[in-house]
């Protein structure tokens, strides 16, 4: 139920809707929960759940994960 899929925002349709590319499939997604549509969002990845973007995916993700892994593997 809580499944959410990352999609790339590729165009803005109106003040609260964008087209998102999810693995080659294009879908209309509502952006109300992340503050509405804005052209600066184009190219960013959003997490999509029941037709709504519930968060943007951070670009620094891999850095964070690597830091956590380093802390675990090599705590010194």
């Amino acid at each position, binding site marked *: *139920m*809580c*499944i*959410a899929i990352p999609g790339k925002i590729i165009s803005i349709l109106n003040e609260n809707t964008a087209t998102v590319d999810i693995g080659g499939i294009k879908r209309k997604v*509502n952006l*109300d*929960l*992340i*503050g509405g549509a804005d052209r600066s969002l184009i190219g960013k990845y959003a*997490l999509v*759940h*029941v*037709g*709504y973007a*519930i*968060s943007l*995916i*951070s670009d*620094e*993700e891999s850095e*964070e*994960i690597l830091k*956590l*892994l380093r802390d*675990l*593997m090599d705590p010194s």
Partner: protein
Amino acid sequence: MENIEQKLISRINEHAAPIRIMHVCGTHERTISKYAIRDIISKDVQLLSGPGCPVCVTPAEDIDFAISLAKSGKVIASFGDMMRVPGTRGSLFDARSDGYDIRMVYSIDDAVKIAKDNPTLDIVFFGIGFETTAPANAAALLREVPENFSMLTSHKLMPPAMEILTEDTIVDGFLAPGHVSTIIGTYPYNSVSERGFPIVVTGFEVLDVLLGIAMVQNQIESGRSCVENAYSRCVNVEGNLKAQEMMYLVFKKIDSKWRGIGMIEKSGLALKKEFEQFDAVNVYADIYEKAQHEKKVSDIDNNQNEMWEGCICAEILTARAQPAQCPLFGKRCSPKNPVGPCMVSLEGTCYNWYKYTHNKGI
């Protein structure tokens, strides 16, 4: 990445001591079952499945009410997961087979569109799900919604259930659900970690789950219990404030009944008074009262867990038992002929165990 996963598995196994880590998310169970994570890590590190499947914990009476509405001529719009879960007298699918108008939707917006396109029909959207889903449903109600649209609200909140689990179940730490946390952030889990339970918020890839396990293990080893975040690409401390604001403009917290668990204080959401014209319980109060009365005389009224004879979904939802311990599992109860809600839902523990481990004779 394969190398990192291998290193994490080695790390978990080298540090293995008898611990019980519970997840509370159906999607975590899917990753764990699908990739046989229980088989590749030490048996000392037990991964328990908690009540992380919203359709599994939806009370039978809510399903009964939805069916009563359908029988009185309303159109029910529901997420697909909910369709096969049995109430006291069958499921929404059963009611559809009987000729009632029950439609599967992907989003509340689809249900609103059905209402707009069919002004002579009364559409009732079955609003279920945890904090991940409730804000989307709130956002729809904050926009223009037609008069012939209403919502049957059965949303649940995860942190209060986790607090109850720390009292009722033997558990050493938790993997917190990544997508619920996208909305609520990490701080609401402090109330659980302060009770002495390590918590790691994590995502749904194999790497995420392994990292979460290793981090919980690390906290236990070092005698700490705090909330850590292994899903920072999507989750931060405060969560999605806009989504929280919209959710609490529309909903208020209420004491709520979880199937298999019972009433949990402040663990559910109901529509606020300002939205009562969209609240199916209010709009169709007569049908609601009748459904409540019928429940009192139904077959499973004496069973407080709302499960069928022999079905141990109530124990499975709280990790007091595993599917293989159920006498019905894989025999009378299978995904094709489910008896209890845990076998019905794609996120149910029994469904995932059946799908990914049953054929191995586990």
